[in-house]
């Protein structure tokens, strides 16, 4: 027993002596913590965009890249890690991770990205101004225009929508889709999932009651897009998606959204402004509204298989086309 106490004391003494040594390592570079909710192509593109933009701005930054793997409690432990590391600035990609950062970090500026409705998520008081130390970029999608585009390709009477009931931004978007359908006089058919394994079953359940499917920027559903596209193609139902990056690989009729990489670059610009001394509270939430920010992908192979003709002006306005199994990117 005495030996043990001796050991313990020695151990403690070592700790006490080494503590200042460990802590006395002031970062010469800017340390930026990036926390994203889950690895998927769109969010990975945001992460890359931020880093590329800061490199272009010649900011010497060191990154702590973290991924919560879809788990909310992991998101808050990442936030705690950033707090104890004293990062100079934290970036939250997607709603839950941004909320975790905003709840945990004290006195560290936070920039959110890919958050659909930052006001509803409690990150900022209004879209016109930032929170006390929070501001960022929203990925609110032009839902109504997307559905109108779909209506020009196919006469849709009943629109189906699948979303994740536990994903805040998906729930917000579902409300907007419902509203848009009401305004356009279309019947809105919704179903929800709680995890990616349910997506296929959910699609099968509503596919016979709809003329087209709408997929929002819902992380869980997008990660199961292969199952959605599979069922939809078998039942000859077109998909309108809000996520062009995943539409490059799956048979989706049309996808209209942002280039998430460009959104990463825009987020990077915000980060640079804050690092140069601008207060987050003075920066309003930014939206991706410039035409150069928007991506429109039209899959002509899918259109042909479903016997639909895409109006010429839509084909012209698309910056990505899939034809004969090839992806053509227009500048």
């Amino acid at each position, binding site marked *: 027993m005495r030996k043990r106490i001796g050991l313990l004391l020695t151990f403690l003494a070592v700790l006490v002596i080494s503590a200042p040594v460990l802590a006395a390592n002031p970062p010469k570079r800017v340390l930026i913590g990036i926390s994203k909710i889950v*690895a998927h192509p769109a969010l990975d593109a945001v992460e890359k965009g931020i880093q590329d933009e800061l490199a272009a701005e010649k900011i010497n930054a060191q990154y702590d890249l973290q991924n919560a*793997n*879809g788990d909310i409690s992991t998101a808050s432990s990442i936030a705690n890690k950033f707090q104890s590391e004293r990062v100079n600035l934290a970036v939250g990609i997607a709603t839950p991770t941004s909320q975790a950062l905003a709840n945990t970090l004290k006195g560290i500026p936070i920039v959110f990205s890919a958050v659909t409705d930052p006001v509803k998520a409690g990150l900022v008081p209004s879209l016109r101004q930032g929170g006390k130390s929070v501001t960022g970029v929203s990925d609110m999608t032009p839902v109504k225009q997307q559905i109108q585009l779909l209506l020009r390709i196919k006469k849709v009477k009943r629109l189906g929508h699948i979303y994740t009931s536990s994903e805040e931004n998906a729930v917000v978007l579902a409300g907007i889709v419902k509203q848009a359908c009401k305004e356009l006089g279309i019947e809105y058919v919704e179903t929800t999932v709680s995890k990616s394994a349910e997506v*296929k079953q959910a699609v*099968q359940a509503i596919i016979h009651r709809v003329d087209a499917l709408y997929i929002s920027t819902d992380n869980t559903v997008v*990660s*199961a*897009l*292969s199952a959605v596209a599979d069922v939809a193609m078998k039942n000859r139902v077109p998909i309108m998606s809000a996520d062009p990056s995943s539409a490059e690989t799956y048979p989706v009729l049309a996808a209209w959204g942002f280039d998430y990489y460009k959104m990463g670059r825009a987020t990077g610009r915000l980060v640079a402004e804050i690092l140069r001394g601008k207060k987050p509270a003075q920066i309003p939430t930014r939206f991706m509204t410039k035409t150069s920010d928007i991506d429109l992908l039209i899959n002509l192979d899918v259109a042909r298989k479903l016997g639909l003709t895409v109006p010429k002006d839509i084909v012209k306005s698309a910056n990505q086309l899939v034809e004969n199994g090839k992806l053509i990117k227009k500048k």
Partner: protein
Amino acid sequence: MIEGILVEGLIYGIMVLGVFITFRVLDFPDLTVDGSFPLGAALMVQCMLLGVNNWLALLVAFAGGVLAGMVTALIHNHLKVPNLLAGILTMTMLYSINIRILGNRANVPILNQETILTQITDRLTGIVPDDYILLVFFVVVAIVVKVLLDLFFRTDLGMTLGALGNNEQMVISQGVNPKTLKTIGVGLSNGLVALSGAFAAQYLGFADVGLGQGIIISGLASVMIGEFLVMKSNRIGVLTFCALMGSILFHGVMYVGRYYGYLIKMTPNDLNLIKGVLIILLLVISQSKKLKKFALKAMVQK
């Protein structure tokens, strides 16, 4: 719709057979399932991406599940941990392991990959109507797994496993080590669960670390529905058949909830509630059956 229910019911039916072994044959409530199901999916997908032969990948998935189950049994046997806790421990650890297997990603899609299902589809196109190809295949798979399992339970080892669940003391008095038996049984059970996960990944087109969430509850519900179908039987062939049927019925109920739930203002968010209520109802009914038997016996004795 019908073939969708049947295919899903059979895919998950393999998992239900695994749950049946632990809960009913071994009397060992095992929660490893929530982790070993996505483990099978992750191993399958990762092997396919590495270019391993698909059938070999299936075997790797099965072996991974067996290992996971053995870990649970070892924790329970040697650290004197209650079986529920041992399962939860393994399940929790598997979450991290699954993400590692998937290359530090939570979700890996199978893009334009040759899967067992696409091979079978190519093989059977023209012979069987397109909608039913997968159904035919999974009927065969389920029957093969079921028959192999029945044969296993006819061997001395299988018999002893069955006896262990009934009366541990008797097995010990016969000079058999119950720890070894439990390790084999729980391992086999999770092997089947992982096999089911491997097929599910191919059917869904991706492996996801969250695939196993709540799987154990659907497995249990399926086992109970299956038992509900037949009056008492102690023939293993009948019992395994009922487990498969229970799985199909359970998926049928969930489908109906999704299909027609909106007619009674029910949303898919309520499905978890329905799962729970369903299990409780089954328990209540089976309890009242027992009570009736007691009442009858009492009447006769009077």
